[in-house]
């Protein structure tokens, strides 16, 4: 069954290879399995029956991109249509890129091994800012001009979606149009419009029409002007483009397309398992967290739909692990019921169920036991800040007592390692808050040694992972300044000094990459030139330590006469026009200002399930905003 597509097009053994030249190169690269395609569940169609060829591009390497749920959903959705063939494209790793450039092999799609320059639509998913340079590099590898204005024809049309499109301005010169919000419906609407325009091939006419589809943002139809102090003066729509573009959401998650099969890779990928989505959005409203706002409102799938979809996936893939996907598993309203249902079949089939970001404090003992049997790795928490005061500021509703209670249960259950995630540089942070991180870790160590049943001779490890706070659009902290690199460094030193136990290990996330992330997260289209200059000087795979060239980036800013600190380290007025103010994610600016003020007063905001605090997302009239509390 899985091979129904593949089998019909491959007859003889020798036809299993399509591109001889590629085959030769693959013996010279690391992990050639990244580039071969042909995995279980990949879709091969007959080109001659296809109207629209769609290249779904993930601007990072195979192992990362293949682990991403969004690509699996859209791949399956697009391929469910007979007139569309959607294929996958990942960024070739540096060794492969070098060979491709040397032998003039353009960037190709995995299924057909055809050059993507000949496709109808090239769609990028933008998951993190540090993949932007790879977008440019992939366009160039495909042999296409990187600038939208230099690509005169309708095809290939270059589009992009994903969370970073909530401020896509740093890519405005390169991408023809952006899709805001959830892509299931709007992508098909775009394909249909494209089909109608394909015979004429007039790109401008197409873009003008496309800008009328809700959720579609055509950056070239907006003109930005600036004040003498470099802030934005006005964002002006042209040629009748809408003044505000509202993101798309799926109304009923029980009815939306969900893949009944995944591509099962041959080589090991980051998350090599079946993934079942359980809800979208988040009720919490942690003030630093962009995902907590841009996916609102919370909409759940029902337990029976989840169960049915999960079973089908395991059945078709042969995976022996399935993971539930959402922003916070514990907030699923019928979790206990769902887990009971799922465990009733997963156990018998030796399928392990993994539940990321789970809070186990309010589980029944039987369920806890089952869940613990499943979870093999250590326990993780994200208190994000070291003191209750600062946790209130960021609206992270987790108390020290909750953390300690859960650790106690975990230690009694035999756990010996706990992982804690924190951020440095949060608004209002003081040295005391930093010491609080060390204190909390110490309390957990002490708690371990107070457990009389602990295994003799076994020691505890508390690992503290620290990243740098990055202010993001559509969060109450979108107005905030990021700490400078010097300040962060001092704070890191202070934390190291505060930790006295050998049972506590402290790890950093590189703050230079967080700085660049902050610049691009809230950047405007003046950064396009910087991005281009940095890419030209060799920047790519910026989220990979071995590839990140900080000096080149700084050089690119200088060359373009742009101060990165203007974007990252400057506090913004409430009244300032943000580069994303014309994009409507449902969250009102008024709400964000109110939340920002509450943060400074140390006041928390209840979650959506307790009370609606009027963020603005109720205008979608869906999910938690309209359900009875």
């Amino acid at each position: 069954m899985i091979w129904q597509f593949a089998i019909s097009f491959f007859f003889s053994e020798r036809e299993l290879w399509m591109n001889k030249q590629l085959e030769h190169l693959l013996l010279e690269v690391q992990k050639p399995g990244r580039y071969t395609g042909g995995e279980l569940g990949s879709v091969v169609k007959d080109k001659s029956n296809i109207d629209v060829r769609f290249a779904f591009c993930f601007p990072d390497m195979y192992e990362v991109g293949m682990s991403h749920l969004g690509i699996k959903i859209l791949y399956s959705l697009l391929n469910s249509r007979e007139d569309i063939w959607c294929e996958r494209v990942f960024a070739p790793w540096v060794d492969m890129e070098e060979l491709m450039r040397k032998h003039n092999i353009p960037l190709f799609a995995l299924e057909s091994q055809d050059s993507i320059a000949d496709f109808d639509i090239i769609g990028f998913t933008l998951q993190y800012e540090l993949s932007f340079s790879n977008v440019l590099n992939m366009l160039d590898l495909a042999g296409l001009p990187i600038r939208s204005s230099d690509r005169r024809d309708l095809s290939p049309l270059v589009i992009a979606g994903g969370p970073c499109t909530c401020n896509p301005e740093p890519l405005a010169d390169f991408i023809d149009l952006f899709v805001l919000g959830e892509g299931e419906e709007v992508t098909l609407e775009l394909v249909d419009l494209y089909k109608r325009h394909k015979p004429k091939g007039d790109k401008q006419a197409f873009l003008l029409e496309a800008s009328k589809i809700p959720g579609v943002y055509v950056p070239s139809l907006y003109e930005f002007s600036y004040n003498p102090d470099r802030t934005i003066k006005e964002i002006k729509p042209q040629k009748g483009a809408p003044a505000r573009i509202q993101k798309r959401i799926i109304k009923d998650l029980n009815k939306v397309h969900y893949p009944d099969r995944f591509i099962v890779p041959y080589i090991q990928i980051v998350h090599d398992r079946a993934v079942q989505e359980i809800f979208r959005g988040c009720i919490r409203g942690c003030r630093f967290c962009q995902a907590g706002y841009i996916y609102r409102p919370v909409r759940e799938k029902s337990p029976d739909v989840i169960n049915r979809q999960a079973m089908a996936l395991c059945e078709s893939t042969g995976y022996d692990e399935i993971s539930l996907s959402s922003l916070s598993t514990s907030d699923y309203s019928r979790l206990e019921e769902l887990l009971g249902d799922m465990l009733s079949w997963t156990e018998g089939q030796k399928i392990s169920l993994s539940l990321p970001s789970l809070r186990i404090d309010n589980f029944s003992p039987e369920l806890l036991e089952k869940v613990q049997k499943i979870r093999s790795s250590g326990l993780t928490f994200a208190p994000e800040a070291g003191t209750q005061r600062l946790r209130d500021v960021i609206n992270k509703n987790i108390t020290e007592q909750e953390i300690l209670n859960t650790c106690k249960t975990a230690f009694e259950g035999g756990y010996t390692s706990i992982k804690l995630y924190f951020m440095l540089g949060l608004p209002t942070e003081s040295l005391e808050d930093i010491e609080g991180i060390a204190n909390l870790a110490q309390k957990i160590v002490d708690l371990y040694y107070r457990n009389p049943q602990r295994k003799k001779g076994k020691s505890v490890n508390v690992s503290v992972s620290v990243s740098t706070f990055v202010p993001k659009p559509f969060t109450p902290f979108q107005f905030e300044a990021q700490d400078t690199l010097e300040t962060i460094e001092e704070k890191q030193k202070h934390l190291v000094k505060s930790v006295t136990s050998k049972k506590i290990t402290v790890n950093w996330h590189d703050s230079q990459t967080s700085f660049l992330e902050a610049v691009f997260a809230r950047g405007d289209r003046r950064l396009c030139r910087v991005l281009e200059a940095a890419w030209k000087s060799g920047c790519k795979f910026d989220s990979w330590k071995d590839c990140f060239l900080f000096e080149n980036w700084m050089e690119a800013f200088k060359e373009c006469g742009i101060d990165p600190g203007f974007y990252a380290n400057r506090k913004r007025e409430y009244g300032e026009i943000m580069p994303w103010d014309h994009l409507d994610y449902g969250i009102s600016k008024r709400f964000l200002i109110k939340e920002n003020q509450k943060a400074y007063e140390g006041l928390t905001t209840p979650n959506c399930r307790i009370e609606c605090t009027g963020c603005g997302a109720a205008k979608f009239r869906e999910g938690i905003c309209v359900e009875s509390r």
Partner: protein
Amino acid sequence: MLRAVRIFYKKLGRLKFVSHLDMNRTMSRLLRLAKLPVWYTEGYNPHPFVSLVLPLSLGFESDYEVMDFRVTDDSISNSEIKSALKAVFPPDLFLLDVEDPVMKASDISFADYEVVFENPDEQLERALDTFLSSPSIVTAKVNKKGERVERNIAPLIHEYRINKDGGLVLFLKLSAGSSANLNPQEILQAFEESTGVKLPYYNIRRLMLYNNSGQKFK
């Protein structure tokens, strides 16, 4: 009752880029997909037990791969297993047979390989012949301690033939298995090093496995 099952298959095309370790995982998944009553390993993370009898290097195709596993229900016949596996195997993994194991994996002593050179030049045939007929072919490797160890691989080459129809094809019968094993790539590398000739692109395919009395591995 547990019953041992041995399957024979070809590994072709793109699958040559799937490593030994990745093949293990893939096979284990295919067994799950086929819904066979396979025996699982015990322990914390149980998975279907599979054993590929002789690792195949990354980049090689094979006409004769052998894998063992066990079924927990001995009423299921080999032909039932065969049709269940056929239904889930991808086209570049071609199932030949399902049998009861006859020999032990450790019995493997020889393997046949075929090396097909693409666009060879005129001199290559002679050069290969001269090289392979030499009584001593010494290769060097750096071991784990960082020392250089030399070995004469000529005694591990039991037969070779060079065939010229349809390009240049080198046939090799080499020692294989746990006691003495020679990878054809080692020969070709030694050839390039000692003659200074850069070989054209070639494809290696394993053809057959034998026990030490020269019988087909069953």
